């Protein structure tokens, strides 16, 4: 009897999640005997959770509406970046700069997300490969744009030479108001309260949205399109809604990311960001056809935990080379592969 219970517990948690969670715990407990700076590691973890959480959250409406893993959040990321740059260009400061960045970013991303959703409705069944390459294409197209866009601010543009900087500092505009907001220290652990609050707020709003009439209709369209159609739900419209919300959330996500980082990164930096977000939500327990807000929170803590805490420890054990990068590659792509093999028949609209 007990055995059965254990088995069902394991299957509900998922084997890879248990392995990753176990790995994380082993690394965590080996930190003390190795004499690592635990408090520094915790600070790092909290910052990273605040940094990446909203980007991971952007996966949820996509999965719910039936488009699968939205590798194309790059579309929203680009919108957010443009929003951030415009707010710097306007010479705004502090909270106004942040809010204007979010406002412009979200509206740009929503428009682009809608168009992108129209495309995804035409390619049902192959959304993931198409969205990956749409994401890659838009990032590489923006690489050209960063060279020719007529921004004037010297914070954005190289003082000499052509085009915009690789990293644009937020120092002179919004600064890092978000992470500093209500920030406090326990011992030596710095808690970036503002960023975590924003993440919590976004999660809460997302939760409300998903449980609203509209959100439930959208989930129904995603999990069983024919049933939803029979009940008078316009499946294509719901998919559009999910894609748009996902893309717009990604715009907020990249702005929060930049806040915690202190810089906006241009050019190829956002190329692989969607993969990290996809991996995190899968580690948290989501599948290609189902995702919850709790998956986001668990996932981002586990995934970022391994990168921010586990890997300095691993590097202590094997000092040479950049083991963290390698482990990140293996874990994040391994989990995506695993969930692709598990998606048999689960692919919506296949």
């Amino acid at each position, binding site marked *: 009897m007990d055995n059965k219970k254990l088995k069902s517990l394991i299957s509900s948690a998922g084997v890879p999640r248990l392995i990753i969670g176990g790995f994380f715990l082993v690394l965590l407990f080996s930190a003390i005997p190795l004499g690592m700076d635990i408090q520094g590691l915790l600070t790092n973890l909290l910052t990273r959770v605040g940094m990446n959480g909203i980007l991971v959250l952007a996966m949820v409406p996509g999965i719910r509406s039936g488009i699968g893993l939205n590798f194309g959040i790059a579309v929203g990321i680009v919108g957010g970046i443009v929003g951030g740059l415009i707010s710097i260009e306007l010479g705004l400061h502090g909270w106004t700069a942040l809010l204007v960045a979010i406002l412009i970013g979200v509206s740009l991303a929503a428009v682009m997300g809608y168009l992108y959703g129209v495309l995804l409705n035409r390619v049902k069944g192959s959304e993931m490969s198409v969205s990956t*390459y749409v994401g890659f294409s838009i990032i590489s197209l923006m690489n050209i744009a960063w060279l020719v866009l007529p921004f004037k601010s010297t914070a954005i543009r190289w003082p000499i030479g052509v085009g915009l900087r690789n990293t644009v500092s937020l120092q002179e505009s919004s600064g890092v108001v978000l992470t500093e907001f209500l920030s406090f220290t326990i011992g030596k652990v710095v808690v970036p309260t503002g960023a975590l609050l924003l993440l919590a707020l976004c999660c809460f709003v997302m939760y409300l949205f998903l449980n609203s009439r509209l959100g439930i209709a959208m989930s129904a369209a995603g999990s069983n399109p024919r049933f939803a159609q029979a009940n008078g739900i316009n499946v294509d419209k719901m998919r559009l809604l999910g894609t748009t919300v996902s893309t717009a959330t990604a715009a907020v996500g990249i702005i929060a990311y930049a806040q915690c980082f202190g810089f906006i990164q241009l050019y190829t930096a956002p190329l692989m960001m969607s993969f990290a977000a996809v991996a995190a939500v899968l580690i948290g327990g989501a599948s290609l056809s189902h995702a919850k807000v709790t998956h986001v929170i668990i996932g981002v803590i586990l995934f970022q935990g391994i990168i921010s805490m586990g890997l300095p420890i691993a590097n202590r054990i094997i000092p*040479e080379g950049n*083991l963290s990068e*390698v482990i990140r590659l*293996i874990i994040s792509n391994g989990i995506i592969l695993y969930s*692709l093999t598990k998606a048999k028949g689960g692919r919506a609209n296949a």
Partner: protein
Amino acid sequence: MLNKMKSYIFDQKTILLFIVMCILGTAASGQTLSFIMREVLTRLGRNAFLVLALLIPVQAGIGLNFAIVIGAIAAQIGVFFVVYWGFSGMTGLLLCAAIATPLAILFGYMIGRLFNNMKGSEMIGGLILGFFADGLYQLLFLFIIGGIIPVNNPTLIISSGIGVKNTIDLTGNLKYALDDLLHISVLDGFSILAAVAAVLALYRLIRHHRASFAPRNNSGIGRCYLGLLAVAGVFLLSYLPALERLLMGTQIARIVLLDLFTVLAAAAALYTLYRLVRHFGSRRKGKEAFGLCLQLAVIGVLYAITYVPLFEKLLLGVVFNITLLSVFTLLVLAAGVCVFIKLLGTLDSPGAVKNSVQLAGIAFAYALTFVPWVEKLLLSSSIPVVTYLAIVLLYLFNGRFMKTVLGQNMRTVGQSMSVATASGINVDRTRNIAMILSTMFASWGQLIYLQNMGTFQTYGAHYQVGQYAIAALLVGGASVHKASGKQAIIGVILFHTLFVVSPLAGKNLFGDAGIGEYFRVFVSYGVIAVSLALHAWKRVAKKEGSPLAE
């Protein structure tokens, strides 16, 4: 006719678009044509094998195989150990292949198994698998080599003793191991190609003639053609330097033996031609052809007369700054072309017409190489023969393979897995074989790539292999479910021309090479995005159009 042309242009729109971009880019780059040709030929030799490795999975319905990265990884493991053990040259390269091939077969089998578990998502799966394998590869090269496998070589290993260095110089061991076996100029390569193509076209033409003319006199016609070929062959022999010297050195009654030989060959050819033409006379339509052939022969003789010194001197007299000779030559040429076209009209099988046109095209292309400008261009660079031969072999293999039982099964699986299962084909096994072949070819392709590059970027050489190979294939007009060797070759040429010229064009047009570089990266991503989207779009539209849609 107009509609046909329209649909042709629509079908070939990708190629046409890229041809226009290449021409514009070349013009804007301000580079000499010989520079661009040299670059593109180098890149063709370097990349074509990898692109051809993509074809089999497309036929098997797996789509664009992003996982060829893993074949490249197998090759790179081989290269590392061969360099470490100190082998070089052709031995080294063969040893690399000996290590890489079993690895690639094993990996290919594993990929096949994995893909069978994610049918329908192979492309995104392959892409992710490539990244995943990259992680494992880095684990092997950064930590296990030196860390667990003891390797002691300061030129290969990072100074701490663990992990392989960023770049491994292949100069002196594997660089040009295959390329340097044999080089010929592009002109020679082109001539050989033209000759092979001409013989092929002639052979087909003969077969058509045998089918359409005088069925009773079959053997006679065949013998005439054979005779013509033999005369041509013997005449070609006189170009052998040793024989030429011999013939030039001997005089019989003040005529150089070579000239005598030439005249004899021409006479023999004429006689055979005459007999051939007589065979045509046996049908009503044939009579017409007979007359035309006769006209052609007369024109030929007229032209030949201009080589008689007396006439030549006479004709070289100048009329309005143009020598009479060139006027005469042009006239004769025009008459020849007219008669040839008329002759085509009398052929009743479309295949024969096609082959005749091909022959004329080959002759024209070959004649072009006598234009000094073209000749200089073609002499300016050389071809690594063995590398190109390897590419040709894979090209032919892909074509042949699809005609075997296994290949036919693969095509069936690619069209519909349920139909394949119903007709007793083991779908999973067939798909595994496709992946094994593709991965194996990819590993060989990566060996060709690395020996040509001459430096082995340990952590970067494989990274973009799938990306660029797939983009090249798609530029050639291929799609997710349909790709041919021809498209692969055209695609490599166009894609890499664009790759060579775009930074230079960017620099000339915008004063910044960066724009051109980002542009080519955008093209490589964009062409894949568009192609994937179009494919999915068509599939959805088809599904919705059919009454059996789910």
